[in-house]
């Protein structure tokens, strides 16, 4: 697998306060993104996700460390030609209409007029903004800006797309649509780097993740490797069985309307419960094995801080 983005041991500190004091925001970030994957960059608020992205884009200069894009130094315009970027809060020229806005970025890449028009039409369709093409960006809602921002990031048909919180500010349907767009990008062979603190989204679409907390990478790897497939416990909801009889089989959580919710840790005991229910002619309402989620992992990592 080819590496499209490699970040090696970058450090960055900002001076803050009236009497400037150095505050180390990134404390040695190292990871790499392989071609064709969706890479999730996960971390709580203020962990340094946006700061890392700004280093990659050349908006700020790291104090130490190296960044390579497509095997070139990251500030090389030839590397940037193959890059797309959606900023965290979309700040754009608000006096332009959506079409003029895309036109402007298309021109910056030197895309020929004919080609440009075709791409703009396709992108407006992709992000569902065809109707708003003639509207000034100042009249856009937050979610609409997010969508047009995504279109802007794709104008040059980039090989690597960097998205900072791409699903922020979107309604549930919008989130699904954008998630679909991201998956579609991977199908086209593009690499997607997406930063987020919304676990659900990352869990659903990412191949690999890196978790950053307090300016350090706490963990990284394939999602499947990070989260154990082992069953942590099983949730069983039953009725028609006396609560006394269930003692020792599992942790009884609630008993409502004759139904009992049990948290069972050993798999043998699940079998025992089922047999018991059958003997007493009771009913099983649900049986859910719970595996570890990204959330469990994330909470474990963030909590000690």
């Amino acid at each position, binding site marked *: 697998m080819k590496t499209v983005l490699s970040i090696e041991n970058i450090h960055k500190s*900002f001076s803050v306060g009236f009497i400037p004091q150095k505050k180390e925001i990134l404390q040695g970030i190292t990871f790499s993104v392989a071609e064709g994957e969706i890479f999730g960059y996960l971390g709580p608020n203020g962990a340094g996700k946006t700061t890392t992205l*700004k280093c990659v*884009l*050349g*908006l*700020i*200069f790291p104090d130490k460390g190296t960044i390579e894009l497509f095997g070139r130094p990251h500030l090389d*315009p*030839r590397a*940037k*030609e193959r*890059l797309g*970027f959606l*900023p965290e*809060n979309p*700040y*754009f*020229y608000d*006096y*332009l209409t959506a079409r003029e806005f895309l036109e*402007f*970025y298309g*021109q*910056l*890449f*030197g895309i020929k007029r004919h080609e440009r028009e075709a791409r703009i039409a396709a992108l407006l369709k992709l992000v569902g903004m065809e109707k708003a093409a003639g509207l000034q960006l100042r009249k856009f809602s937050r979610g609409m800006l997010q969508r047009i*921002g995504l279109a*802007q990031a794709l104008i*040059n048909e980039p090989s690597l797309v*960097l998205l900072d919180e791409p699903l922020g500010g979107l309604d549930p349907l919008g989130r699904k649509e954008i998630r679909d767009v991201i998956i579609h990008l991977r199908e086209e062979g593009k690499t997607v780097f997406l930063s987020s603190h919304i676990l659900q989204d990352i869990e659903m679409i990412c191949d690999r993740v890196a978790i950053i907390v307090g300016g350090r990478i706490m963990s990284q790897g394939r999602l499947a490797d990070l989260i154990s497939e082992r069953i942590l416990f099983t949730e069983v909801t039953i009725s028609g069985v006396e609560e006394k009889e269930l003692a020792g089989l599992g942790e009884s959580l609630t008993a409502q309307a004759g139904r009992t919710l049990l948290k069972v840790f050993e798999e043998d005991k699940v079998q025992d419960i089922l047999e018991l229910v059958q003997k007493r002619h009771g009913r099983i309402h649900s049986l859910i094995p719970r595996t570890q989620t990204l959330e469990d992992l994330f909470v474990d990592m963030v909590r000690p801080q």
Partner: protein
Amino acid sequence: MIIKVIALNTFKEAVRDRILYLLLFFAAVSILFSRVLALLTVGDRTKIVKDVGLASISLFGALMAILIGTGLVYKEIEKRTIFTLISKPIRRHEFLLGKFFGLALTLFVMLLSMSVIFLALVFFQTWTIEWRMLAAIFFIFVELILLTAVAILFSCFSTPILSSLFALSFYLIGHFSWSLETLIKKARPGATRTFLQALYTILPDLENFSLKTEVVHGLPIPVSHMLYSTAYGIVYSAFILALAILIFRKRDFI
């Protein structure tokens, strides 16, 4: 190519600024007011119109260059529109030069509008057009270019208000630095004189770009002076822009 795209967008943005039209309005009022002044004076009335007219164009042009120029780069950083821009295959100097040429284009259009009013006024009084007036306007443009560069330089590292103050000081010092020359002549040779001479060399001399006296009083304008002033304007602007690029290149956009 990239510079051109950014310049055109800058032009689009700048011509939306209301300050521009406010200044243009006052410039027009000021130019037309010279006609009223002329009526009130005895002697050569055309002289007054030319004098006040050229002075108005220069002053209001300078205010446009400074007030718009100092906000251009700062606004991009403040509003974070620069994020998406820098993430494209653009070098930072291309961004800065795009901004510079965009504002230069804006000022050119504004200067043209003011000149049309001025030249029409003079024409209806004298029924002739002097090429020397065009030369005077050309040098006002050269001066505005230099001021644009200065405004952009300051806006690379400070807020619009501070930058405007700096740039305005530059403008005022530039127009009064020639008085140092008189001072140098009066000073006795020695440390003071050397110091004044050094100061005079460093400080901008914007009077180089003023052909008002020559135009108003019908004095000859030596070609050598015009060549020298043009070269002076270009070299000085290039120097200021280079300085701006140097500062801008190493900046963090946070």
